[in-house]
């Protein structure tokens, strides 16, 4: 982040390939000068530090006792929590406090990332004067009232592109804001030279590249139809690319449909998700309706 993001210090707690990919991308593409440390926080680590203990029934009772002994003693302003196990969420308030964090960004891209006691985690952080946000999925994050998270959003969050079209093809793509996982950069690279005359093919290609595991970075959010975070993240990326191309986004289509009298969530879902397959999940419709102040 140029000028180390106004001197902002960032610490990242992560787990597994999901977290590792995020850490790599965030450090490589913006937070390198601001990152004061990273730490892989796993259930296995706590089991090793507390052998033979009934850990999982005790952590929530006395979380500060279970803050890992090997956690670096550093200070930070913004604490990122990237894909840690849902049962470890109670550790975040004491960890954030110990590090002097003013804000916590705790994205949820999988049901297993959501802290079991989300409400109590939120309350415990608030009690300590620490702001927390839980974007779902992470790449839906666009802006914040919190200055530290707003600074983060200058570089990462909901993707933004600049696209140059020429002769019915994509000639150049610039990523103005990357997704935290780095899929926006990976997709941008793959789209150069692709035809943009048929919007259906363009949408399908964008969606496929978004979670193509052969790319350097790809979406690792949960894709179960019961929790389609990946599908929603794909819709977000497609819309960002369409917007940059000057093509109608889902938001535009929803507004058009409303003008035609299709105002209900069910009617929009039927048309845009089921019939036209413009969106991969109804979560996208719900999110946009919420953003428009028209609760689904």
């Amino acid at each position, binding site marked *: 982040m140029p000028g180390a993001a106004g001197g902002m210090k960032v610490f990242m707690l992560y787990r597994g*390939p999901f977290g590792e990919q995020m850490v790599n991308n965030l450090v490589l593409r913006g937070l390198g000068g601001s990152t004061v440390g990273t730490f892989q926080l796993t259930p296995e680590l706590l089991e090793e530090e507390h052998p033979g203990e009934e850990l999982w029934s005790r952590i929530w009772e006395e979380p500060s006792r279970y803050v890992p002994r090997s956690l670096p003693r550093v200070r930070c302003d913004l604490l990122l929590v990237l*894909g840690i196990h849902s049962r470890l969420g109670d550790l975040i308030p004491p960890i954030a406090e110990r590090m002097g964090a003013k804000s916590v960004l705790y994205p949820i891209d999988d049901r297993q990332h959501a802290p079991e006691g989300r409400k109590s985690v939120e309350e415990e952080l608030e009690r300590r004067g620490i702001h927390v946000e839980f974007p779902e999925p992470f790449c839906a994050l666009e802006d914040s009232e919190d200055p530290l998270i707003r600074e983060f959003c200058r570089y990462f969050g909901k993707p933004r592109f600049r696209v140059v079209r020429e002769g019915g093809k994509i000639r150049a793509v610039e990523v103005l804001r990357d997704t935290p996982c780095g899929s926006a950069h990976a997709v941008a690279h793959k789209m150069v030279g692709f035809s943009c005359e048929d919007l259906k093919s363009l949408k399908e290609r964008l969606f496929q590249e978004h979670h193509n*595991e052969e790319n350097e970075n790809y979406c690792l959010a949960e894709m179960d139809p019961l929790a389609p975070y990946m599908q929603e993240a794909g819709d977000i990326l497609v819309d960002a690319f369409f917007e940059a191309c000057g093509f109608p986004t889902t938001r535009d289509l929803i507004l058009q449909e409303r003008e035609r009298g299709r105002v209900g969530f069910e009617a929009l879902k039927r048309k845009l998700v089921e019939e036209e397959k413009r969106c991969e999940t109804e979560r996208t419709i719900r999110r946009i309706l919420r953003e428009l102040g028209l609760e689904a």
Partner: protein
Amino acid sequence: MSGVREVLEALLDFKGNKIREFCLRRLESGRGAYDILEELNRGLEEIGRGYESKEFRRYFESDLIVSGANMKRAVELLRPHLVGEGERKRRGKILLGTVKGDVHDIGKTVLSILLQSSGFEVVDLGVNVDGETFVKGVREHQPQLVGMSALLTSTAPYMEEVIKALKEAGLRDKVKVIVGGRAVTEEFAKEIGADAYGRDAVEGVRKCLELLGE
């Protein structure tokens, strides 16, 4: 580092470097390609068990995706060490697809590579495949086998719909159906009227050979 930990670290490395090093180390120590795949497969099973555990879900969907992608890398790397394709007779044709609602394709892709290495001609219909597409595929390609995969318990029941579609089209008796994927069990396969169940890609190849009477 313990063997299990080494396997898990190789499978869960999102950059895919460790899996390559793991395979090369094993080959250099004289291990056979199928042995290495079996060892990796035990690692995948460990991750799968951790994902399915109701008491403590230790692994997440992202772990399944990355470990599957690494398994695919391992199969590609080991492919030259598997029995040479040219040395064997063509064994038959199989139509593969991940059923409607499910967009996971890594397990199916690994199976596809192993089947091709074992002499099968594979027609891959991709992911999110509905019954009509399976029926159309059978008519067009006339395979001996149809393989269906599902990772998600919410999508596995669609396999029964595909079998029904094959029956309604009068094609069920013309093909043997094998099912697999994390969401499928042997009992489930029997319930929906499949001819065979493959626990993993290696077993899937063996069952396909059995279905062809080999």
